[in-house]
Structures are given as C-alpha cells and as structure tokens.
C-alpha cells in the first residue's frame, strides 16, 4: 500500500469561522495506481492535493492521518515535511506555466532547484536529458527561456522536473486544464508512461474533467462537499456508478455524438452546501432525488464490492 489517508480533516480559517474543506476523507492508493480525483469546484479536491504536500497558512490540520509506505506523513509540521517533499511526494501545480521563473534559462533553474533539495545536478543530468526526450522534448530546451516554450512544452518540462527523483507519490493538480485537446492527450499519456516506467510509484490526478480521467486513471475518486462520495475502478465509475451524485454527474456530460434532439441531458439542480457550517448528515441530501429520512445521518464510506467504495445509504440495497 503506497498511500493511506484516514479520516483526514483540514479546515480553512477565515474570520467568519472554519470552512470544512476536507471533512473526514479516507482512501487507499495502491502501488502503481493512478487515481483520478474528480469533483466540482469547491468539493475539496484541490485542498486534498495541497494537504498532501504543503498546508498553506490558512489551512489547519484538524484530524486524521496520512501514511506513505507505512510511515506517517506529518502534514501539519512544515519542517518535518521538507525532506519528504520532492523526494517522496512531488507536485505538478495547476499553473505550472507560471511556476517557471521568466528570467532564468530552464537548465539553470533546474540546477538551482536540485541544489536547494540537496541533489548534485551532475548526478541526474543524463537522466534529465533522457526523460526530456521521452516526453518528446529536445534537450536543447535547457538552454531556452520559459517564454520561448509553448504551454504544452512548459507543462512537460515541469512534469520531468517534478519526477526526476522518482517520488513515491506524484500529485498532478489540473495539469491539463489549460491545454488544447491534442496537447492534453499527449501530456496525459506521458504521465501514464512515467508510471509504467516506474518514475513515479503512484499518482493522484486531480481534474474536473471526468472523461479525461477515464482515459488514463485506474481508479476514480469522486468528491462532494469535502467528503468522498465514491471511489472505484475507472470503468465502474462510468459504467456502473452507485452514488446518486456520481450517477447524475456522469449522465450530465455530453459526449461526442450526443445531441439535444437525440435526448436531452439534465444537470443537477441546486448547488453544493456551504462548508462554513455544513449541514448534518449526507451533504448531497438536498439535491438528491433518492433522499429519505435516514439521510439526516451521515452515511459511512463502505466497500460495496471489492475495490468499489461509496457513501450512500441506498447503495446497499
């Protein structure tokens, strides 16, 4: 087992009170697993990916544990996290393109980064070139400035940098959202290739685009209002979703080939609850057509089939 998150609670502090951005999230990530983390804005998926690497000053670890390869990850202790970051857990940020310093050549920037992490650039230089070639970049990019690269190229450079030390866990936060469809596909496929070559052991791929994770992820975890709604193998989430939210979400996605005249798709009425004072019980209750009395009580996340987890009272029936 690579990553085990248990009942993780992370709140955002605001002047009006705590925002319960992550409220009891539990899941396991196996060796070699690529997990797609999907959900709408504000569901906590970005908070979760940030929590695994660095809590910013407004975030507070309220409860729960994170284990990586059997060892506790001290997410609340910024100092203790330093040796883990980049070496064990690495992140490709959402705006990787702006993460590159415009006044430095890319090669120089990578060397500076490596030294600051206690690695001698010379030791990994060959590997760096090999991997740049693998993602379809000429190693010459090391002598160029970030402004000379296209968005997709920058994204690939950042991908190579983040995985250079073969981390156990890679978190990719909306890495393809700003890219064009064709670039998106090649970046996504490179990520899978990195896993296949064991440059990274396992990966959390955060996105709002379910059809994209379906293409590349082994499992998909759907979050809703700070909690896990469902986690299952990718195919099961798309073909046989069990949580009503997942069902409605998947059926709201137009596909190549679906048209209005060929059958109108319906969205999910309503909006997610505010997380400042989240309601008791199931948080999807107000928008759920299947809601009944018992939903006033919070449904536990249970394994309904091997590898298929869902948090809904109705899934057992």
């Amino acid at each position, binding site marked *: 087992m690579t990553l085990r998150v248990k009942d993780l609670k992370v709140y955002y502090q605001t002047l009006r009170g705590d925002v319960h951005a992550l409220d009891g999230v539990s899941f396991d990530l196996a060796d070699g697993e690529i997990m797609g983390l999907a959900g*709408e*804005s504000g569901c906590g998926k970005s908070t979760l990916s940030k929590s695994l690497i660095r809590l910013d000053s407004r975030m507070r670890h309220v409860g729960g544990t994170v284990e990586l390869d059997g060892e506790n990850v001290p997410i609340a202790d910024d100092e203790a996290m330093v040796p883990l970051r980049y070496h064990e857990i690495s992140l490709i940020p959402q705006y990787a393109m702006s993460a590159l310093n415009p006044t430095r050549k890319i090669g120089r920037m990578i060397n500076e980064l490596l030294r600051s992490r206690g690695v001698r650039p010379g030791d990994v230089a060959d590997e760096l070139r090999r991997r740049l070639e693998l993602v379809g970049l000429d190693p010459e990019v090391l002598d160029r400035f970030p402004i000379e690269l296209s968005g997709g190229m920058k994204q690939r450079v950042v991908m190579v940098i983040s995985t250079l030390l073969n981390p156990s866990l890679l978190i990719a936060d909306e890495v393809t959202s700003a890219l*064009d*469809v*064709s670039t*998106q*596909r090649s970046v*996504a*496929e490179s990520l899978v290739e990195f896993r296949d070559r064991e440059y990274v052991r396992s990966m959390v791929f955060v996105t*709002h*685009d*379910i*059809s*994209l994770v*379906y*293409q590349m992820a082994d499992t998909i975890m759907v979050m809703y209002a700070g909690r896990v709604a469902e986690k299952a193998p990718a195919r099961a989430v*798309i*073909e046989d979703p069990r949580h009503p939210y997942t069902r*409605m*979400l*998947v059926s*709201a*996605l*137009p*596909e*190549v*080939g*679906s*048209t*209005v005249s060929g059958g*109108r*798709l*319906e*969205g*999910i009425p309503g*909006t997610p609850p505010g997380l400042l004072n989240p309601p008791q019980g199931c948080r999807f209750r107000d928008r759920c057509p299947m809601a009944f009395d018992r939903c006033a009580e919070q449904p536990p996340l249970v394994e309904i089939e091997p590898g298929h987890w869902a948090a809904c009272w109705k899934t057992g029936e």
Partner: protein
Amino acid sequence: MSETLLELEHVHKVYRTGAFGGGRKRAVRDVSLTVRAGEVVSLIGESGSGKSTLGKMVLGLSRPTEGRILVEGTDVAGIRGFAARKEYYRRVQGVFQDPFSCFNPIFKADRVFEMVRGSYFPEVSDADWRDRVLSALGTVRLDPGNVLNKYPHQLSGGQLQRMLIARALLLDIRLLVADEIISMLDASTRIDVLNLLADLKERGLGILFVTHDLSLGNYVSDTSVILRKGAIAEMGPTTRVFDNPLHPYSRHLLSCVPQLHRTWAEVDADLAANPPEDVTLPTVADGDTSAPLLEAEEGHFVGIDQK
C-alpha cells in the same frame, strides 16, 4: 430555409504586433459562413484558431481587416456613430466566457439589467420592467429571490452566466454570440446552460456558439465549423462533420477528445481497423492569404491544410 441572420464574407483579421507595429499576425483568414434564424452554429477550435476574434468582430468590438460581416443584410463595418451602434445591440448580443469578469465587482449583479433599461427602455415603468426581468429570469430558470440584490461574488458562475443570458433576452435580439459560455462552469450546471441555448434556438434566435470543446459543440449545434489557425478546416452539418470527419485536422482532434465510454486506445484501434479515405484538400500558392473551401459532399466543406 429560414432567413439568413448573419453572413461572413471572406473575413480576415490581421493584428499588428511589436513595438512599432512592424509584425503582422493573421488571426482570422478568409472565413465565410452563415447563421440562419433558429440555427446554432458552433465555431470549434483550439487556442489561436481565431474563434473568439470572430465572435468579437460580429459583436462589433473589433473590426475585420478585410471582408464583410452582414447582419440581416447590413454591413457591420458601416455602422458608425453612437445611435446606430446602440440600435445594432438591440438585435445582436453576446455572452462571454468568464461570468465573473462580466460583472463590475463593486456593483450588485442586477445592475446589468438596469443598464439595459437605462439605455433602451427609459420609458418603461418600474412595475412593467420588474415583470420583464422576472420573466427573463424565469426563462433562464433562475429564482429571482436567489439572484436579485446580490453582489457578483455571492453568486455561482452558473447563476451569473444565466443572468447574462437573461440580460440579452430583455432586448428583442435576433442573434446571440455565445463565446465559450460554459467553459468556466461546473459539469453539473453546464448542461443546463446548453439546454437553454437549445430553448432559445426554438424561439427562432440565431446563435453563434464559440467553443474549444468538441463534445459541447456537438451537443447543441446544427452546423459545426472547425477552425485552425484562423482558417476554416471543415464546415458542415454537425452530424456529418462528427460522423464523417474529412479534414485530417478534424480527425486528429476527434481522436484526442477524451470520451466517456471509449478509451483513446479503442479509438486508435478503431481508426487503424477502418482507415478513413483520403480526401483531396484545396491548396493555395505560397503567399496567397485566401483559404478556399471544397464541397466534398452536399453542404459539407473542407478547407486547406496548414502546416
């Protein structure tokens, strides 16, 4: 055949770039297309395809360098002077990509309605105007109690976007330019806004729907136009374009779209098993800036291949 609302004739847009305007960038190249009443035309393209520039030109926010844009027979470039422009916007309206940036953050959101009233309907009584606003909100399926008297940051992107559509409906518009209107919305509300466009179409509006997402363009439109580097790569009835893409670029795009029930591997295998026939594409000489279209089958056109 219903009447033609919008007609683009060989439209070009060239931007001057660089400090002294020395550089030239061709954002739109020789685009001709039409939008009829009760028709949704999707302009589909990746970044840099010129799709948004086309939308802005139709809205009169930018002028074509060459070519003509006709709305109900009048040349948009010929609309000069404040009064004429104002009349133009009575018939043609736009909704943009980022609903948050469309609202002036320091005013309440319903000010967008007040602006329309101030400019176009100063004579309408308070009670009458309120009825019109409520009925427009009803059309876009918004609960007035939830959205009136609120600041933009208190509302969701979906709500704001629907308010903007409601705003356009307060005017008696014929043509709506919808520029990436759902790309900032969540999946669960996206489809409602798309359905709304379908409803507007039923009411006889012509809609120019600009998008980068092929599956969305496919869902709502009658005609699809695939743009690449400012020129039309393929244009035709949506079902034809998606079922039988002729241009290599369209085929490539379609093979890259993540689909819900088919993986990329399956799509590739399918393509390898049934390789599409080659189509003769029109060609142009070097230095020629035109982009001719070839009618491959009835109403289905392919354009030049740009490297």
